[in-house]
Structures are given as structure tokens and as C-alpha cells.
């Protein structure tokens, strides 16, 4: 990594256990700003936990985590709010709030975390829905959306805050190849147009090769490989 490159995400010797089960053991890696990291590994190896640690839904037992230069491990809620304002999280099943319409799902983060006016929120939501191809569906309830539409809606909610760091937990799981490729294209577009750092947990090796700049492979809580595809991470 060149001296000029700044790291958007730094994991420094992070460990996490749930009871007797150690999920992450002494994991360290850095992701330069504007790059896409694909995290691969078998189920139960700590991939999703890594994403949840990055957005502070979980706290590590040991180690430090930095996001965009801010050490988040010991931050209180007020400080975490400032960091989360610049992050987006696409959950595995989109995690849309099923009592709200698609529009309300996307507007909620803007109402809660920004000072935007109602008109500005309308404009942002319309723009993001257009990007993901759901402009005509903004008054629909999540239950009325197909699986692919829900994933795109979840991605749209992650993008409304114009994140500097986008976390995606198995964005293509349960989707056909065409829709999965569309989701991958949206990730690449975020990187190329906005310089967003994207961290994707995936089982889709082909998709990972298509979008990834860096690859991390987890096995039983250990980071067993990290680097570029040509550098030997494969």
C-alpha cells in the first residue's frame, strides 16, 4: 500500500466470542479507501460478525477497529452516530421495516440522522430509487416486493446516506445470476462514481472475482488469506 493511500477500515487484532465459541481470533486487515473487499469463507466462520463489528452492532472482546480514521471500539452512542451517518449496511435479507412503505424505509435514516428538509428527503429518496430501478414502487410495502426487489430496496436504504463505507452481507444470496449481477454493478458504480469503500460478505466466488479488489478468506474465526486475486488470496 502506497504512503498516500488512506485506509477506510482498519481491523487490528480483533477477537470476538459468544460464550465458549470463539468466532473471530486475532483478525487484522486494512482496506484502502475506495476499494472493494470481498470476504469469503464457510458458514459460521465470522464473516457477518465482522460486518456487525464494523458498524458497532457488536463490540469486540479484544482489539481495535477504525472506520475512516475514527477508532470506534470505545465510542459512545453520540460518537457512533457521527460514524454511522457515513456508513450503509445491506443486511442479508434486506431487513426492511415491514410496517413502512419502501419510501418510508428509505426516508427513516434521513429523518433520523440528517437535518434535511422534507423536500430534500423526497429528492434523495427518488434519486436513489431510480438508481436501483425501483422508482415506480416507492409506495409498496416490503411484503409486496420480490426477493430481488427487496435486496435492491435494502441496498437503496444503505445508499441514501451517501455512505463512504458500504457493508453488504451476502447481497446476492437467493438471487438469480442476472439480478445478482445487477447488484454487483451497483456496488461497482458506487466505487467508481463516489469512491465508496465496499465490503461484501459473499459465497458467490464468481461475483467476488467480478467486483473485488481485495479478498479475505476466513476459516473457523481465523483470517487465513488476505490480498489481491493475483497476490495469492485465491
Amino acid at each position: 500500500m502506497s504512503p498516500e493511500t488512506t485506509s477506510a477500515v482498519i481491523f487490528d487484532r480483533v477477537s470476538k466470542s459468544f460464550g465458549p465459541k470463539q468466532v473471530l481470533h486475532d483478525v487484522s486487515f486494512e482496506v484502502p479507501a475506495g476499494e472493494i473487499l470481498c470476504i469469503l469463507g464457510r458458514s459460521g466462520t465470522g464473516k457477518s460478525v465482522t460486518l456487525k463489528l464494523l458498524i458497532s452492532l457488536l463490540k469486540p472482546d479484544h482489539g481495535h477497529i477504525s472506520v475512516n480514521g475514527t477508532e470506534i471500539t470505545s465510542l459512545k452512542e453520540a460518537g457512533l452516530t457521527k460514524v454511522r451517518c457515513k456508513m450503509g449496511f445491506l443486511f442479508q435479507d434486506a431487513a426492511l421495516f415491514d410496517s413502512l412503505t419502501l419510501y418510508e424505509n428509505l426516508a427513516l435514516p434521513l429523518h433520523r440522522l440528517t437535518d434535511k428538509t422534507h423536500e430534500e428527503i423526497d429528492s434523495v429518496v427518488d434519486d436513489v430509487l431510480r438508481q436501483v430501478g425501483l422508482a415506480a414502487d416507492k409506495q409498496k410495502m416490503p411484503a409486496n416486493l420480490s426477493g430481488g426487489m427487496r435486496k435492491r430496496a435494502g441496498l437503496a436504504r444503505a445508499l441514501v446516506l451517501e455512505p463512504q463505507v458500504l457493508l453488504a452481507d451476502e447481497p446476492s444470496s437467493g438471487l438469480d445470476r442476472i439480478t445478482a449481477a445487477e447488484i454487483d454493478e451497483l456496488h461497482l458504480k458506487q466505487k467508481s462514481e463516489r469512491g465508496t469503500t465496499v465490503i461484501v460478505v459473499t459465497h458467490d466466488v464468481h461475483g467476488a472475482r467480478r467486483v473485488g479488489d481485495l479478498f479475505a478468506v476466513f476459516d473457523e474465526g481465523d483470517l487465513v488469506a488476505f490480498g489481491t486475486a493475483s497476490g495469492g488470496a485465491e
Partner: protein
Amino acid sequence: MIPTVQALAFFVEIGPLVAGLLVAGRVGSGIGAILANMRATEQIDGIESLSIDAFKFLAVPRVVACVIALPLLTVLMDFSGLLDGFLSEFFSSRISFQLYITRAFAHFDWSNFIPPTIKTAVFGFIIGTVSAFFGYTTDEGAAGVGNSNQ
């Protein structure tokens, strides 16, 4: 005597008890199921990732709703029971409505109505809190949703 006993029984014990049981069974299980489902589908994680206190956002309004709704439902139960009692008496003895009500409240005091009705607010608090707790803290997954309903 029957209208008097009926009114006292409904207002002091039966109305609050039945209202509490109905709400515990129908509403309490519903609250638990909704919150458990939100936990299982990561909606609560989604809310927390937006720096919203998910417990305040989801559980507190439901507890407040139970506290407010139970006394109102209890009053409805009480008067429903009284009306049913009148209908039963009317078909057996042709008693007039005015006479029935006069006899029902002849020995009735506000202390027979206000404390039992207010105690249902406590029932509502317990029902809302317990069901929200079990729903909110459920293990993830379908089995967790089912377990939180029990």
C-alpha cells in the same frame, strides 16, 4: 339482589380479570411475535445501525399502549357484562332497564370502580413489558419466534 351482585362482581373483579386475560393472550402474544420476528429478520439490527434506540422505538410505545388501553377495555367489559346481565334478567323477569340500573348501582361506590379499573393499568404494564422483553430478546430464527410466544 342479582343486579347489585352482578354489578359489583363485574366492576370489581370479573371485568378487570377478563380484560387482562384477553389482552395477555391476544395482544401480549402479538407483541412478542412481532418483536421476535423483527429480531429474526434483523430489522432490530437495522434500526440500531441507524443509531436509534430500538427498545425505546419499538417496545416503549407498545407498553404505553397496553397501559392506556387496558383500563378503557375494562370499562367496556364492565358495561358489556352489565348489559348482558340486564338482558338475562329481562328475558326471565321482564324487569325494566331503569329498575335494573337503579338496583345495580344502589350499593355501588366509586371505590368499587376506580381502584379496580386503575389496577388494570398495572396489568397492562406487566403484559406489555413481559411480552416485549421476550420478543425483543428472543434467539434468532423461527424457533425463537415460536418460543417467545409461549
